[in-house]
């Protein structure tokens, strides 16, 4: 649920000592990075539009779109409607703007009307992926996970390269505890994004959750791979420690596998300790975490049989 905050009175430019160009550039960066910091976008964007709108040139239209979506996220329907109306005036027959109208209806939970908007777009243009994805988002918002999953699968049969869709599907499967299918989605993502440490690490987490010796070994391999790609990924480091420890402690493994995994776990433990010591230097408040980690590692240690 989004909680409505009271608006601060000081202007953004006063508070942060920035000019309108910096505000415009910040908005562009947030667009490029696909950030969902909606409260900030609303603060900066609303001021930019109202105080410096005339200076923005053609940029203003994409800013209207960005601010409108952020405004919906913050329950600022007044601002969203203002932006939408400007866009409608400028681009009267645009599908892109029609999609924004649909999104506003979604935010107001008028899902049937929103669906009508998207169906109208799709009648005109059956390849409009944005409208299809919005329809799937509506299913998700309504808690209809099974249908959302089905629609998303159909979508991906046609648009097999849509990364965002594959990731969305993996999240839906994880929430339904369908780890096998979540793993499949993440495998797709790892294939097309071999240098992305986050996908490796998420895949490893799914495998670990599935459990069983084979999955644990796979999880350990992918935690290690994530670390190779980004040696500061703490989740991967802890994951390596935990998966290796579990494998070493399993009665089903032979002596060599046990020994190897104890080595991996020991290495991971050293790295974890080092990272926490570095993090704890100079800050009093972190003593809790450092000590807790040391004790935790001790309590999880496998003893040699």
């Amino acid at each position, binding site marked *: 649920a989004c909680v409505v905050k009271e608006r601060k009175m000081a202007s953004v430019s006063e508070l942060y000592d920035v000019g309108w160009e910096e505000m415009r550039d910040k908005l562009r960066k947030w667009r490029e990075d696909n950030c969902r910091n909606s409260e900030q976008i609303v603060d900066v964007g609303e001021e930019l539009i109202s105080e410096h709108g005339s200076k923005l040139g053609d940029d203003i239209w994409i800013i209207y779109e960005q601010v409108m979506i952020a405004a919906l996220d913050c329950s600022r329907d007044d601002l969203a409607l203002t932006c939408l109306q400007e866009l409608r005036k400028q681009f009267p027959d645009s599908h892109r703007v029609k999609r924004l109208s649909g999104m506003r209806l979604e935010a107001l939970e008028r899902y049937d009307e929103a669906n009508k908007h998207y169906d109208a777009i799709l009648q005109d243009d059956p390849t409009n992926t944005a409208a299809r994805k919005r329809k799937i988002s509506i299913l998700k918002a309504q808690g209809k996970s099974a249908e959302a999953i089905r629609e998303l699968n159909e979508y991906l049969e046609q648009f097999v390269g849509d990364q965002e869709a594959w990731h969305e599907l993996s999240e839906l499967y994880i929430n339904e505890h369908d780890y096998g299918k979540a793993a499949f989605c993440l495998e797709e993502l790892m294939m097309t994004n071999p240098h992305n440490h986050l996908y490796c690490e998420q895949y490893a987490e799914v495998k670990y959750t599935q459990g069983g010796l084979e999955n644990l070994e796979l999880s350990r391999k992918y935690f290690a791979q994530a670390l190779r790609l980004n040696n500061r990924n703490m989740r991967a480091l802890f994951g390596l420690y935990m998966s290796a420890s579990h494998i070493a402690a399993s009665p089903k493994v032979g002596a060599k596998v046990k020994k190897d995994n104890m080595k991996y776990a020991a290495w991971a433990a050293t790295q974890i300790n080092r990272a926490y010591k570095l993090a704890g230097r100079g800050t009093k408040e*972190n003593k809790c975490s450092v000590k807790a980690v040391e004790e935790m590692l001790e309590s999880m240690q496998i003893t040699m049989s």
Partner: protein
Amino acid sequence: MGEVELSCRAYVKMYLHACLFPRCSINGLLLSSSSAGGAVCVTDCVPLLHSHLPLAPITQLALTQVDVWCSQTQQRIVGYYQANACVSDSSPTPCALKIADKIAEQFNNAVLLMIDGGKMSPDYRVPPIVMYERKDSRWTLKDKHTIMLRQWEETRAIASQMLESGDHMLLVDFDSHLDDITKDWTNQKLNNKIAELASPANGNV
């Protein structure tokens, strides 16, 4: 069965956790520094995750770390809280039940608390929470009259005030801690702020 008391500190941090990630499912652990027996006094909470709640490794890790911290600070884990991303559904998910079961193995009177996202707006005057307790191996709804929030109006005011001042941005959950391990998931800074805002007469923070 028994009475459960929820402290200002525990409620405010849970509330701020939910506000910090309004579009995600979030969860955390409920702690008590009181001795066992009598009412369960939830005196603190540790916010855990805002992503991939059903996945095992980070949850296991967090449970172990919090366990160790508790034994160092004379606290114990007495419950679990969760807020679902989908505001219209505040029922416990399978993963909530699983984690709560685990906690109940170590503590008989464990509580499962679901935050009702739909009732968090300022015009609601009652605590937006639903509590469950374990009866005959099942999690059943607790009688509202056995749930106590002392100084509720004050707690509510503190939560609102901290949200408006942007203090929820200071909250660190375990997920955020893993992104930057210099961040403190025990949230001492926030605890101090809450204590400052609570009236001096209220010794029960």
